[in-house]
């Protein structure tokens, strides 16, 4: 097993922790290492304590590892906060222009002096730490130079200047701690939210509509920044209710649309989500979870919205729900669900969570591998928006089509879309909508609904971003397979039953209080999962702690 190293950068909000974290991540990415960055911050703009944890290894790593080799402290508080996580042989790089500490393993970086020496703007000061770190990791400076180009584009130059000053200073006074060489090619370093955004676009997205809400907001930011390049429309309306209704209107008029929010925002969307179900207008909602109920803990992570989303919106209607757990899966599944909802004319939800949405991982994505499906389009004859078909899917036409009248409705309706309150017609239309379910299930058989890792008599069942910590923890366990549930609706019960029925021990791992996936599996398969490792303190699973808990059971 290749060793995993971690650099932790900490400071106050507004000190540029995140940008420095990204530079360090990209530097290691440039050298061909596998990288995972956790971005941890409280809900405030200035002050508090933010940190980025950059874990890297020659082998793929699936989550953040808190055991820190090098701590970069932009303020004194950082040292106290992270001391417990320091490994033997650790080093601390601290801003000695801000504070002084007496410690054998601490290296003071006088960033103020370097700003003057390099003659650059104040806001470049953090790049001193990138320069110092580059030397201490034994990395050739040219790689850092290239990295600044990648991260800052034409603003790279002053950052390179100050980083070089720091690099030379460190070289004069210290020896490298590691000897990191280029071992491979760079991959794409992206957050889960960027992966979702890219996946939606690869899947054919035309319009993205969202009201800001952590931790989904960066999808909105990313797509807004790319709107021209991707030829998509990105809109921020007055609230989530407007968002979902705008999206349904957009789908009705023929454009592939997605919306993004977190739990509280989706609460407001439920009536519109139900409208999409009744009117059979395909809309994808991205729901990136944070702890609730209510405001909860806005900038941290949770997997507590599963039960809710399975039943969101009043009334009964089929829906497709997928929960990717990794940045790669986020890309492929986002493209997949957008195509699926159009194929079947149902609403869909992609469930993410803060730990997936805002953590960075470097990945290789292949656009040619994404799932594509053609919607069933009207060709000729008399048009009925809700025409009865065996698979429940009526041919689509859009307003603006000559000779066609498209009547879409929230009210129960006949095949033409005209209101009905006749019991026979009502029952028949409900049966029509649910006729799709069987065909959706059939289609999903060709897609990855449950992912199995490894083999063994024991099984760990998990979903969403918890898969990362589970994969890391299981590296040290024997005789265990991991069952990651990707599709939650329709629920892949046969596959799951098949995987679990012969197992000696089954452990559920999820970031909620009730063990919602475990309950869902029981409801669908009758397989009881009583061994549950649940976390509901708003922080992601840490692989070492998870390993200790799993070892006791398996």
């Amino acid at each position: 097993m290749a060793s995993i190293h971690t650099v932790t950068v900490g400071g106050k909000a507004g000190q540029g922790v995140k940008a420095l974290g990204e530079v360090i991540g990209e530097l290691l990415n440039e050298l061909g290492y596998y990288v995972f960055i956790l971005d941890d911050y409280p809900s405030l703009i200035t002050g508090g304590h933010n940190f980025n944890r950059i874990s890297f290894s020659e082998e793929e790593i699936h989550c953040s590892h808190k055991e820190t080799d090098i701590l970069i402290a932009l303020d004194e508080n950082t040292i106290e906060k992270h001391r417990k996580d320091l490994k033997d042989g650790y080093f601390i790089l601290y801003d000695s222009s801000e504070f002084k500490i007496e410690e054998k393993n601490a290296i003071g970086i006088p960033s103020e002096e370097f700003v003057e020496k390099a003659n650059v703007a104040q806001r470049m000061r953090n790049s001193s730490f990138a320069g110092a770190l580059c030397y201490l990791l034994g990395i050739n400076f040219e790689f850092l130079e290239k990295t600044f180009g990648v991260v800052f584009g034409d603003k790279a130059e002053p950052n390179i200047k100050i980083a070089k000053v720091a690099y030379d200073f460190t070289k004069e006074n210290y020896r490298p701690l590691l000897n990191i060489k280029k071992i491979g090619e760079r991959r794409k370093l992206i957050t889960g939210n960027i992966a979702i955004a890219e996946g939606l676009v690869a899947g054919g997205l035309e319009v993205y509509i969202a009201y800001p809400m952590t931790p989904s907001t960066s999808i909105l930011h990313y797509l807004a920044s790319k709107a021209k390049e991707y030829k998509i429309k990105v809109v921020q309306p007055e609230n989530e209710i407007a968002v979902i209704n705008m999206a349904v209107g957009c789908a009705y008029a023929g454009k592939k649309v997605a919306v993004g929010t977190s739990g509280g925002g989706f609460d407001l969307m439920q009536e519109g989500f139900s409208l999409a179900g009744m009117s059979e207008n395909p809309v994808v909602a991205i729901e990136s979870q944070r702890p609730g109920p209510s405001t909860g803990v806005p900038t941290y992570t949770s997997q507590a919205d599963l039960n809710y989303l399975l039943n969101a919106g009043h009334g009964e209607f089929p829906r497709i729900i997928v929960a990717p757990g990794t940045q790669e899966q986020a890309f492929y599944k986002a493209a997949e669900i957008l195509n699926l909802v159009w194929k079947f004319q149902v609403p869909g939800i992609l469930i993410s969570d803060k730990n997936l949405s805002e953590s960075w991982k470097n990945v290789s994505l292949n656009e040619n591998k994404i799932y594509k499906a053609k919607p069933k389009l009207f060709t000729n004859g008399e048009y009925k928006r809700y025409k009865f078909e065996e698979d429940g899917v009526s041919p689509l036409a859009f307003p603006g089509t000559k000779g066609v009248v498209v009547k879409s409705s929230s009210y129960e309706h006949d095949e033409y879309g005209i209101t009905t309150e006749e019991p026979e017609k009502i029952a028949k239309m409900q049966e029509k909508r649910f006729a799709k379910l069987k065909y959706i299930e059939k289609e999903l058989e060709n897609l990855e609904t449950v992912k199995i890792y490894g083999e063994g008599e024991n099984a760990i069942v998990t979903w969403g971003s918890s898969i990362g910590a589970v994969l890391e923890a299981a590296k040290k366990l024997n005789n265990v397979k991991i069952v990651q549930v990707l599709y939650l609706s329709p629920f892949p019960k046969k596959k799951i039953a098949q995987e679990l029925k012969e197992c000696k021990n089954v452990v559920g791992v999820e970031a909620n209080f009730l063990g919602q996936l475990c309950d869902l599996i029981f409801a669908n398969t009758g397989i009881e999962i009583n061994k549950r490792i649940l976390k509901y303190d708003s922080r992601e699973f840490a692989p070492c702690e998870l390993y200790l808990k799993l070892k006791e059971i398996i």
Partner: protein
Amino acid sequence: MLETRASITWCPGCGNFGILNAVKKAISELIKEGEKKENFVIASGIGCHAKIVDYIDVNSFYGIHGRVPPALTGMKLANKNLKVIGFAGDGDAYAEGIEHLIHSAKRNTDITMIIHNNGVFALTTGQFTPTSPKGFKGKSTPSGNIEEPINPLKIMLASGATFVARGYAARVEHLKKLIKEAVKHRGFAIIDVLQPCVAFNNTYQILNQKVYELENFDTKNLEEAMRKVEEKDRIPIGIFYQIEKEVFEDYF
């Protein structure tokens, strides 16, 4: 003319009939004048007014309570060529979904909203709405409504609406003209239509006495429009305000 298979279920004498006739005439004439029938989309919220989408043979979207403006905006984002006309009741537009009206006006999205303003929630059998007068006795306010009504057109003027008008359901020809102008207007257009409710708020008599058509009114003067929409002794109908402004959808 633009008939559908649906049978009309409004009360005999309902003000909605006047609105329906005016809309059908307006759309038919616009089609004759060169607009393509397939580009019309009508949408409704929830309430008595909402049944109108079933009664006109053009593309339609039966939406949910209060949410017609964003649905129409979504359609325009998808296809700029569509002529989208939304219907909402006073409860629908001014209570449940007032934020959408304000923000659609602010955006100047190219949609037309026709508000069936009868001053009462009728389909739920008679409760006060934001436009019911103080003292209105409804089933939820047996001792009389304790709130002052709002003036929706004042709110629309303040929000940046670029076409603000009032019509009367019983003046079908006049209303038809207003609707045609509103649909032709590029930008956010609202027509507040005074609509008697024969079951819960029958205002025919009083409106017939008070309503008069605006003539030679300067529709470019915001202050004048603000004053005019407030007039109470006599009730003016017609266009109060109309200006040209960049349209939301054109930015994309």
